C-alpha cells in the first residue's frame, strides 16, 4: 500500500517530494501470531509517474497513459514496496508536446515519452509507454529499484 499525491507542475512536484521526505510512515506488522508491532519508517521509496491530464470524463489525452492507469493502480496496491510514496505529475498535451518542456530538458528527468515511471532521484531504471501497462514489467521494475535484501 502506498500514499499518492497528484501534481501539475515541476514546482508542485518538488514540493511534494520535500513533503514526503519530511514525514514518517507508520507501518503495522505481525511478525508472530499475537504480537502487533508498529514502527515508523522514515526512508521509503518515492516513485514518480509523469502522465497526461484527463478531461472532464476522466479520459486522458494520452492513449498509453489511459491504458497504464488501471495497471499502475493495481501495482501500487499489490506490488509496490511497503511503504512507498507515489507522485503523479499530470501534463497537458500542449505542455508535453513542447520540446522545451522542463521534464524533457531537466537533467533530473530527460524524459522522451509519457507515461514514464521512475524512482526518485534516479533516471534509471524507468518504465516507459507500454511498459507502464505491463504488470510483469512493473514487477521487474520494483524488483530492480528496491531489491529485497531480507524477507
Amino acid at each position, binding site marked *: 500500500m502506498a500514499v499518492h499525491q497528484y501534481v501539475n507542475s515541476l514546482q508542485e512536484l518538488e514540493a511534494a517530494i520535500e513533503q514526503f521526505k519530511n514525514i514518517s510512515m507508520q507501518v503495522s506488522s505481525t511478525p508472530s501470531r499475537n504480537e502487533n508491532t508498529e514502527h515508523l519508517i522514515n526512508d521509503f521509496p518515492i516513485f514518480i509517474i509523469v502522465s497526461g491530464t484527463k478531461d472532464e470524463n476522466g479520459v486522458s489525452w494520452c492513449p498509453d497513459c489511459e491504458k497504464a492507469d488501471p495497471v499502475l493502480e493495481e501495482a501500487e496496491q499489490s506490488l509496490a514496496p511497503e511503504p512507498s510514496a507515489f507522485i503523479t505529475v499530470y501534463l497537458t498535451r500542449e505542455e508535453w508536446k513542447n520540446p522545451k518542456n522542463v521534464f524533457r530538458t531537466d537533467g533530473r528527468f530527460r524524459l522522451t515519452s509519457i507515461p514514464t515511471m521512475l524512482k526518485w532521484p534516479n533516471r534509471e531504471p524507468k518504465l516507459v509507454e507500454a511498459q507502464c501497462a505491463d504488470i510483469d514489467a512493473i514487477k521487474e521494475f520494483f524488483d530492480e529499484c528496491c*531489491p529485497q535484501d531480507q524477507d
Partner: protein
Amino acid sequence: MSVLKICTKSFAASLGRQSERSLKKIYRISSSFRTFSTEGKLEYDLVVIGGGSGGLACAKEAVAQGARVAVLDYVQPSPRSTKWGLGGTCVNVGCIPKKLMHHASLLGEAIEDARSFGWRIPGNAEIDWLAMRDAVQDHIKSVNWVTRVSLRDNKIEYVNGRGHLADANTVVATLHNKKEVLLKTKNVVVAVGARPKYSTAIGAQELGISSDDIFSLEKPPGKTLVVGGGYIGLECAGFLNGFGYPSTVMLRSVPLRGFDQQMASMVVNEMEGRGVNFICKCVPESLSKTLDGRILVKWNTTPGASGGSGQGEDVFDTVLFAVGRKAVTDSLALDKAGVETHRETGKIFTTNEQTNVPNIFAVGDVLHRKPELTPVAVQAGRLLARRMFGNDKTLMDYDNVATTVFTPLEYGFVGLSEEESEKRHGPENLEVYHAFYKPTEFSIPQKDMSNCYIKVICLRKEPRTVLGMHFVGPNAGEVIQGFSAAMKCRITMEQLLDTIGIHPTVAEEFTRLTITKRSGMDPNPQACCS
C-alpha cells in the same frame, strides 16, 4: 517531523490486514517464479549460471534455437560491500565504466588542447568526481534494466540467486532470502566469470579497494596507489591521473606481462610522461591506517628480483589492487558433477567449451587459457548454443582476437607479440616493420608524440603472412578493429602495403611502413606526405 498514518480503505482491522500482507509477501516471491511448481523443480534444456557477457549471449541464442532456458545471476558483494545488477563484469565493473571514465579523462585533456586551437576557455577545468561517477552509474543502471527487459522479451527465466550444482543435471539457486530453488536441466553452461584478487599484504583486504569498487566510489579517490601492472591497473591509474589525482603504479615484475614488451614500455613511458609514478619490482608488505584516516603503505623488493625501486613507504588516500582475477568456481560445487578445474586459478578445462562432463559447458573468463574479453565470451557463447540446439557445427576461433588497452595513449593489437612470433617461428624467419609517426592533430597543442609507434610482424618467406599488428596511439581500438578482419583473411605484407591509406589519419601509417628492424634504419618520420 509529522507522522502520517496510512489510512486507506483496505487498511481495516489490524489482524485481517496482517494476514493479507503476509499473503502479499508470498505472492511477491512466488510470482517471480510463476512457472515453477510448488516443489520448485522444473525441467530445462539449459541452465546458464552467470548473467554476464558470455552467459547472456549463450542463453539468448539457445532460446532462438528453441531451447527452454533459465539464467542465474548473483553478485557476491566485494570486501567493500559493493554490489551491482544484471549484466556481469563488463557492464557493471569492467569495459563499460572503464571506457566511460577513460573518455571522461581524455575530455579533460581535450579542453586544454582546445585553447591552442583558438578556443577561449575561462578558468581551469576540474573534474567533479561525484558528478562523473553518477553519470557513469546512471548509464550502467540503464543497461542493467535493458538487459533485464531483454531477458523477459526473450522468454528466458531469470533467477537472481547464487547457483551451485547438486549433480550434473540439477542446479540449485539460493535466493537472497536463503530459499532454495531446484532446477532440473539437460545441460549446464558455467559462465560465472572472475573477481579481483587481493595481495597477501597485511591490511590489503581491510583497507584496499579493487576494480569492483572504483567505478562507484562514494568519494574522490585522491592520491592513489594502484598495485598491479596489468591492463586493469594501468587503465585505472591512467584515468585517475588524467582526472588530476596523483597516481602511482606498483609493478611486481613487468608491465602488461604476456603482452609485447616493447609496446608495453611505450605505454608506460607515456604514462610516466603524464605524471604517473612507477614503483618497479616491488610488492606491498603492509597497509595501515594513519591518524588522519589515510593509508600508510610499506613495500619491498619482489622476492627473487634484482634492481627495481627498492624498499619504501608512502601515504595514500586510496589503494587499488589490480593483481589478477580469480575464477568464481569455488562455491559452484563442480565436484558434485565431477567437473575438472585448475587447482590454483579455479578455471575450468574445456575443449570447444565442453568440460570433462558431457552435458556441462563453460564460456567466458572462467575458461582456462582463453582471452578474457567480452566479445570472445559472446561469440563463444553464441556458437556453443548453436552447436547444442541448432545445426551449425562452427567452432570458436580464439586466434587473432584484436584487443585494446585503454591507457591514456591507447595500445591496440591483433595477432602475436614479437616475443611469441620469435618463439613460434624463430627470429630469422620474421620481418618486423616499424615506424614512429606524428598524428596531425598533436602538432598544434604540442602533444608528446614520442610514443606514437606502430609495428607489423610478418613471415619472411612468401606469402609473407602478417602475424601481428601493433599500434600505440590515439583511438587504438578504432584503428585496429578493421585490421583484425584483414588478419582473419590471412592478409600478407604485400596486400597491406598495397592498401591505400586515408589521409590524414593515424591508421594510414600501417599502409606506409617501409623500414624494417633488420635494416637498422631510423624509424622516425621524415616528413608528412612523402
